[in-house]
């Protein structure tokens, strides 16, 4: 079968008077050796653009290795480790005969395509760099790439950051993807972003078991693949269904860079990368694709050992002028807050009544604009409360409620004015502190005397860290370690270690009564009479009502906690080394502008069938933020410990 008559292809026009060969023209086989020699003479296989197109990175012991783990990105069997062999195979491939377009049931097999069509970005780059004479190497028609090109119709590229979502471990640090903008405007001048294509790199997972997920995700057992879908799916999923604000960073790429990006994303669509939750994740490979599209960009070099979505946003800003516009798309919950912000107490009563399926007599007496505002807010409230259940069909009653309210609203027959929501004053992730944190300090305790403190954290944010760019409601920390060297003992010892520590403060408000909760997995030094200062493995959870007021300036939570400690020396349950404990916990936090934070916690534990039978711990930490560093003062009291410490904290990207 013949492909479409003239196909679209990236053409690098190497001479002013270039000539495009006739349709169906054959490549000139004598031209291939010339090109191979030229590529060799210029050491093109070590050119940084070429290395980026193949995602080759220097190996520790010399040589190269591509991060791509699927075979689809290579024409040479040695391609993964040999950029030069791959370059020769690519040039060879460009001269291949035959139609080569997969059809019918093999449509989904890109390896059957002609190499020019599989690697349009390589073709464009080589044609430009080697000034390929397109009369002697005629570009082919590539119907499938062309269809992709038209579907995308990219006139802009935007990096989208989807905010932190604690209810899904995969998204606890946020998510990053690309929106390839068509830059179409409606007749009224509004942006039509919803019909743009979103391209993201995501793990193809096969488990919903959180522990298995964490394990497989951390150690690269999942495959990560690039995929494209209309942006509206992303908006519905993230902004509506998961209620996550979206931050959009439009990049100043020129036409050539955009074409390279689209061409290269097409190339990446054929392969997969082993997915590592912490390092080679969504952010990493999206940035890698951007670097391949524009070899002047420096993005990956700005990332730390852990690649977090927020850090990849900061990496954009490390390239001056790269971000040309920042936009904010409000989540369902943010929209609800905006709709209720200006309503009076009686209006809010009416919103509540409507959202609970009751009628509001007072509402019928009010003016039309007021009724519109109240019902519009009630609709958003129903969606925030029941959106999931309505969509999954899990709650037919909520569906009936929503439908009644929608019909009530439509019967008013007046359009709602547009809802304009400014970005939150805390700013986007680009304003956030560096996600890694190192600390050096000293403490003095009654039991141990003075000691040196060393601590580190891989990611991301706790309740006393600088608040700009983060949600005031969320603590999420990954791999935290605190060590001490006591003056008397001269031995390094572990104070605290966390694999993960999460706190989600959810204010009990008029419309939403979600509980605050916390989770910690790690190890801690036991500071009561359960053992002589042994280190115990720890699993702790807690939940209860919370308050977040004045934009986060004052927060508090009262929780019912349960924890499990385990250590060989511990006098735990019936003399075993396992010690469960339950009891209340309290958390208070004050923020004074962006500069000062004060966090206090307290807990009391009943320890059934263990010795001792109870334990407690109180702590207060004050932090002063001075740009990239902070100073922390801490005090702690427990049955067998009372200490104060002063630590200098340094935040790094």
């Amino acid at each position: 079968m013949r492909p479409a008559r003239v196909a679209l292809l990236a053409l690098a026009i190497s001479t002013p008077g270039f000539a495009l060969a006739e349709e169906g023209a054959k490549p000139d086989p004598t031209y291939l050796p010339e090109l191979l020699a030229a590529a060799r003479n210029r050491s093109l296989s070590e050119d940084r653009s070429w290395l980026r197109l193949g995602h080759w990175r220097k190996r520790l012991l010399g040589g190269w290795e591509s991060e791509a783990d699927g075979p689809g990105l290579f024409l040479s069997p040695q391609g993964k480790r040999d950029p030069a062999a791959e370059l020769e195979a690519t040039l060879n491939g460009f001269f291949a005969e035959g139609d080569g377009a997969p059809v019918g049931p093999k449509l989904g097999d890109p390896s059957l395509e002609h190499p020019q069509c599989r690697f349009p970005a390589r073709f464009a780059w080589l044609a430009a760099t080697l000034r390929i004479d397109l009369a002697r190497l005629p570009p082919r028609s590539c119907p499938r790439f062309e269809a992709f090109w038209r579907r995308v119709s990219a006139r802009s590229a935007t990096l989208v950051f989807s905010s932190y979502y604690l209810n899904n471990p995969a998204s606890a640090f946020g998510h990053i993807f690309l929106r390839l903008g068509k830059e179409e405007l409606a007749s009224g001048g509004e942006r039509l972003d919803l019909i743009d294509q979103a391209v993201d790199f995501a793990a193809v997972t096969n488990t919903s078991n959180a522990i298995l997920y964490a394990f497989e995700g951390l150690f690269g057992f999942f495959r990560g693949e690039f995929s494209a879908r209309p942006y509206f799916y992303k908006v519905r999923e993230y902004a509506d269904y998961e209620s996550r604000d979206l931050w959009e960073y439009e990049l100043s790429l020129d036409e050539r860079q955009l074409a390279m990006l689209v061409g290269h994303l097409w190339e990446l669509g054929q392969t997969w990368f082993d997915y590592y939750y912490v390092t080679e994740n969504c952010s990493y490979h999206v940035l890698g694709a951007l670097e391949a599209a524009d070899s002047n960009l420096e993005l990956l070099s700005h990332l730390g050992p852990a690649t977090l979505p927020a850090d990849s946003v900061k990496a954009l800003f490390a390239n001056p002028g790269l971000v040309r516009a920042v936009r904010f798309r409000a989540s369902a919950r943010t929209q609800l807050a905006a709709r209720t912000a200006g309503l009076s107490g009686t209006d809010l009563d009416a919103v509540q009544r409507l959202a609970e399926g009751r009628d509001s007599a007072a509402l019928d007496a009010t003016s039309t604009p007021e009724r519109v505002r109240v019902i519009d807010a009630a609709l958003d409230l129903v969606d925030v409360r029941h959106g999931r259940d309505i969509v999954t069909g899990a709650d037919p009653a909520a569906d009936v409620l929503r439908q009644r309210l929608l019909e009530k609203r439509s019967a008013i027959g007046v359009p709602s004015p547009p809802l304009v929501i400014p970005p939150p004053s805390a700013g986007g992730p680009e304003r956030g502190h560096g996600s890694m944190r190192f600390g050096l300090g000293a403490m003095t305790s009654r039991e141990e005397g003075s000691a040196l403190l060393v601590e580190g954290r891989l990611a991301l944010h706790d309740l006393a860290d600088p608040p700009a760019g983060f949600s005031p409601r969320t603590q999420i920390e990954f791999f935290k370690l605190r060590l001490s060297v006591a003056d008397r003992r001269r031995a390094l010892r572990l104070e605290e270690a966390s694999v993960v520590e999460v706190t989600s403060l959810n204010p009990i408000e008029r419309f939403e009564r979600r509980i605050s909760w916390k989770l910690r997995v790690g190890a801690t030094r036991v500071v009561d009479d359960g053992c002589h200062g042994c280190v115990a493995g720890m699993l702790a959870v807690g939940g209860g009502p919370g308050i977040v007021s004045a934009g986060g300036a004052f927060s508090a939570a009262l929780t019912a906690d349960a924890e499990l400690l385990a250590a060989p020396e511990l006098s735990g349950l019936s003399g075993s080394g396992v010690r469960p404990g339950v009891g209340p916990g309290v958390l208070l936090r004050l923020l004074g502008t962006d500069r000062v934070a004060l966090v206090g916690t307290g807990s009391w534990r009943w320890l059934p069938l263990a010795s001792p039978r109870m334990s407690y711990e109180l702590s207060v930490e004050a932090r002063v933020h001075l740009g990239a560093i902070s100073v922390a003062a801490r005090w702690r009291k427990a049955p067998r410990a009372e200490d104060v410490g002063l630590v200098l904290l340094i935040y790094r990207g």
Partner: protein
Amino acid sequence: MRRARWMVIAFILSAGIARADENPAAHGKSTYGLAGCGLGSMIFGDQKGWIQVLAATTNGTFGTQTFGISSGTSNCVESSGTQGARTFIEGNREALAKDAARGSGETIITLSAVAGCKDARAVGAVLQKRFAQLFPGEKTPVDQVSQNVIKELRSNSSLACGKIG
């Protein structure tokens, strides 16, 4: 540098290429059910829509087949025309219903552009007025909703929705 001059990338489009939605074979109509081009109908079929979308995006069950960049199963132009409108309505069902009840909003503006309607405000007014008939609730299959809406936009000549003729 002369680079800028000779690194121009030209993309040549031919008038000879059939529009994807006019050429069933080009997008495997027989293979992918109702619409061929309809990402929406591929995913949704007669299922509950969002769950499938979420499955597609969050755990990738459908992701590789449906949204693969080079696997060729969704390479139609979805941003305009009847198929585009259908895909859009089905993928935005809940949000569009809410905007329709309110008579305005982003999904109405976008749908109007996809369907080529003259004035999104007029579309909003019509969808609002006919809301109860067009969006009878979640019990109604999603393709019924998209059919309702497209039929309404077509039959109301004052809306002049030129791309879904």
